[in-house]
């Protein structure tokens, strides 16, 4: 029975697929008809979409012309034809009176977006005009009040009108409508945060003034007092927002700066740790950078710094902090003092010792990985420090007889690094531009690819007084450490 069923199924399947093929070929024919025509058009598809859109019912001309009007505005904006856009906008405003309440309610937001764009760029427009427009639009659709207020404030900020922006934000902050919905809450937090940012701006200005004042000056006290006031208000405004998952870099940065200034290191650490490690927040490299910089300022232990950068390494392996990361790893990998301390400890800690040894090795290995990772990026190819580190690191790794580590890294790169870094072209241009860089690269090339490699050959053939010694040393090192066995 099941077999029969299966048969029937396949039968109907094949029928269906035949139909599919048929319809496809038909469509193809149609399409080719279109394409062989004069213009590029898909009228068949267009018509189809139109009928689907209106559910087969004929759309009213009003709806049709307003949607045409919208696309004319969009086209004009795209072509930076502000005047034309304004002309069409004049007609598009009718949609606010659409009898279709759904469209009518969606209209204010569209009008605000298009209108503010036009008013931002139109040569005849000015701040006053923008203000009237924004104030009108705020009161049309209640739902957009906060969003428009915020964007209005940003516009004012853009025009350097900080006080007006601040007033605007304060107004929006106190505005309430119905029951507070979650989207409103985020917006209000954002508005408050922007207000906080403005206060931070005032605060940091005061700070600069203060730094120029003498401590004994009688003005110093009042100034520092007002600074304190500002900072208090700001922290209230900023604090709420950064609890909510999101990317709030400027807010976090200024908040931390103020906390640190008033000596609240724990508060600052908490904010930054939360910002970097809370899983609800989107992955954000800056969060880790801020935390790292803070910990560095705090002179935190190396292990802690490494653990922060480890995460950054996973997100942005090409970040310039990666060289610093490498240094930290190298230091931790080859440090002797921890060993000597541990030597004094009793036997039961010996397991720990083994662990730390393993950890150290791991750090060294990771250090190598990090360097390879940095040099994978086109933007870092001329970073002399990176090459220097790599040359040194390779030598040490091979000296420590960890050939396997190098091979592991090299295996995935041996197909493309020679062309990417060690081509004849690069040899020539590197030598011309920066002889030290060329020497470091040549050393790496020699170790990884052997004496026969073009880059190495080109550099080693150069006869230059200053670098003659260097090249000699390089040749020697290559001979000693190259992972390529010339015999094979």
């Amino acid at each position, binding site marked *: 029975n099941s077999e029969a069923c299966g048969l029937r199924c396949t039968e109907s399947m094949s029928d269906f697929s035949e139909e599919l093929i048929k319809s496809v070929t038909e469509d193809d024919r*149609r399409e080719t*008809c*279109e394409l062989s*025509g*004069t213009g590029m058009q898909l*009228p*068949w598809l267009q018509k189809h979409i139109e009928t689907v859109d209106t559910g087969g019912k004929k759309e*009213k*001309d*009003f*709806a049709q*012309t*307003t949607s*045409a*009007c919208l696309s*004319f505005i969009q086209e004009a904006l795209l072509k930076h034809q*502000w*005047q034309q856009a*304004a*002309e*069409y*906008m*004049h*007609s598009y*405003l*009718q949609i*606010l*009176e659409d*009898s279709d309440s759904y469209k009518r309610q969606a209209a204010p937001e569209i*009008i605000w977006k298009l*209108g503010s764009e*036009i*008013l931002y760029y*139109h040569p*005849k*427009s000015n701040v006053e*005009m923008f203000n*009237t*427009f924004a104030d*009108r639009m705020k*009161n*049309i659709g*209640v739902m957009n009040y906060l969003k428009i207020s915020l964007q209005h404030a940003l516009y004012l900020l853009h025009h350097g009108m900080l006080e007006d922006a601040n007033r605007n934000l304060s107004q929006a902050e106190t505005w*309430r*409508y*119905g029951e507070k919905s979650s989207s409103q809450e985020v917006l209000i937090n954002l508005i408050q945060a922007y207000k906080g940012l403005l206060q931070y701006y005032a605060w940091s200005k005061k700070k600069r003034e203060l730094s120029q004042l003498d401590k004994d000056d009688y003005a110093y006290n009042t100034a520092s007092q007002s600074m304190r006031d500002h900072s208090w208000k700001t922290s209230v405004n900023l604090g709420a927002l950064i609890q909510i998952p999101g990317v709030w870099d400027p807010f976090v940065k200024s908040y931390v700066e103020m906390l640190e200034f008033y000596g609240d290191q724990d508060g600052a650490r908490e904010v930054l740790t939360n910002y970097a490690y809370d899983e609800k927040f989107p992955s954000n490299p800056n969060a880790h950078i801020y935390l790292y910089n803070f910990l560095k300022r705090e002179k935190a232990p190396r292990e802690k710094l490494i653990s922060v950068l480890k995460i950054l390494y996973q997100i942005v392996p090409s970040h310039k902090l990666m060289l610093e990361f490498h240094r930290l790893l190298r230091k931790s990998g080859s440090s002797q003092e921890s060993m000597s301390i541990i030597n004094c400890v009793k036997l039961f800690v010996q397991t720990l010792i083994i662990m730390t040894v393993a950890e150290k090795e791991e750090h060294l290995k990771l250090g190598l990985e990090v360097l390879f990772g940095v040099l994978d990026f086109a933007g870092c190819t001329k970073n002399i420090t990176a090459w220097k580190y790599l040359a040194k690191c390779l030598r040490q790794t091979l000296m420590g007889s960890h050939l396997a580590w190098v091979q592991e890294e090299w295996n995935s790169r041996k197909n493309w690094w020679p062309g990417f870094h060690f081509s004849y072209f690069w040899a020539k241009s590197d030598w011309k531009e920066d002889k030290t860089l060329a020497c470091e690269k040549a050393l790496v090339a020699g170790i990884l690819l052997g004496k026969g490699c073009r880059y190495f050959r080109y550099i080693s053939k150069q006869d230059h007084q200053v670098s003659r010694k260097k090249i000699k040393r390089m040749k020697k090192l290559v001979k000693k450490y190259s992972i390529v066995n010339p015999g094979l």
Partner: protein
Amino acid sequence: MDLEEAKEFKERCAQCAAVSWGLTDEGKYYCTSCHNVTERSKEVIDTGAIPNTKIQAINRGLKRKRKLEKGWDWYVCEGFQHILYQQAEALKTLGVGPELKNEVLHNFWKRYLQKSKQAYCKNPVYTSKRKATVLEDNPSHSDWDSEPELLSDLSCPSFVESGAESQPDVHTQKPFPIIKASQSETASICSGSLDGVEYSLRKEKGIVKMTVPRTLAFCYLSLLWQRETITLSDLLRFVEEDHIPYINAFQYFPEEMKLYGRDKGIFAIESWPNYEDIYKKMIEVATFLDLPRFPDITEDCYLHPNILCMKYLMEVNLPDEMHNLTCQVVKMAGIGEVDFLTFDPIAKMAKTVKYDVQAVAVIVVVLKLLFLLDDNLEWSLSNIAEKYNEKNKEDKPWFDFRKWYQVMKKSVDEKKQKWEEARAKYLWKSEKPLYHSSIDRSVVYKRREMVVNLQKQFSTLVDSTPTVAKKTASSFQFNWTEEDTDRTCFHGHSLQGILKKKGQSLTTKNSLYWLSTQKFCKSYCKHVTTYEESNFSLSYQFILNLFSFLLRIKTSFLHEEVSLIEKRLFKAKYSKTKKKSSRSRKVRKY
């Protein structure tokens, strides 16, 4: 302001849907979140019932309220009468003779009122409301001449005041001998007119209800009766170009004729008229009015295909010589006969010729006869013409299809672009907004004000010089001159390269022809197989698109008309297609 007192008002705000009300100094409710002031006042709410006009009136002072809100007592049909009046006036300024308004349209309208039992009959629908199903007034309507008293009745002044242009008290006089005091109280709740609610509910069998699109059917019928030089497509184009009141025609009503509630559904229009729709309505109205045979369309009438073909040949820049061929096609197809052309609503199957569409279809058929339009022959003929024209610069040039195509394509594309832009900029909303109820009123007015303010703001950003001055109405949309190389005029070009001598007469070099439609529906619908654009040659598509743009009709509609003419022209072939169905067949001519 007293928020405590406003607590019992629990409705949602019409603007922001919040329930948070305060009371203004005048005792009206306003929304505390969006500051929208309603028309509702506290006293009315306290009654606990749906606001009754009477209570409201008492609360506000009876007289003042009546004057402000009510305006005149008027009927829906008066509104339509007013629109017709405006349209007739507009037609007059377009150059149509004054008889159209004073005699023809006036009489049609009176006849309509009588047939629909709204006036000029013993038992008008208003006095006897629902029981008026059995009406024993005039037994036979079919004979136009048997009602002389109706035709001479000039009691309806709005149409007849041709001499005096001023019409201040035209509308105060009403043709309805009705007592309406009792109705007005209740009816005014939902409409400005007295019978708006009732009118929108009315569904009587056999009665053609008046609508705004039907006003155009009336206009066209009168134009046809007068055999004026305006075709249906012209009329509709004039409507779209705002030469004839149609969209928001109600805003020209006298100030005292208030519209709201149900009137909105009756008088507000958000689409331009559509050819097929108005065409159908016109036949419907003519049949309903039981109109007699219309005046004959003879060869000297503008609507005769020979004349219309000449007009459209000029319009699309084709050689005058083609007129000879169109006349022959008209003759052979038998579509130039008076009986064929004249509209007779009482004939068994009332239908009228789509004069403009048919004339254009004849031109398409002629183009197919001359050039075959198979994306091949027309181009090779063009090569011949081009070579000839290069060699003989002094002579009358041969018509070059390719060159014509290039000129036309460019002009039409430009025109279409402008047309689309103008449509996108069209302002639909009237200065006098319509609202559903008095509660709605303030919201609607406020919204209107807001739009006006915003529009003002954006108009300051637009060049002060108006880009497009209002176009003057013209039956021609293109203008061809010899001088301009971009818009070369082909009227004087000859068809020599395309015709050849055969004995005494000329025949087309091309002896092939393909039929636009192979099979016609067998069913009673008489539809032609649908037009699937991609099945046809590009030249044919271009020509159909060109003409259908000129007439503002759908391409498929024109294709159908072309097929119908071919059906008449090649009757014999069509009867044979039942057996054979080869795509192209030879057709001998001349």
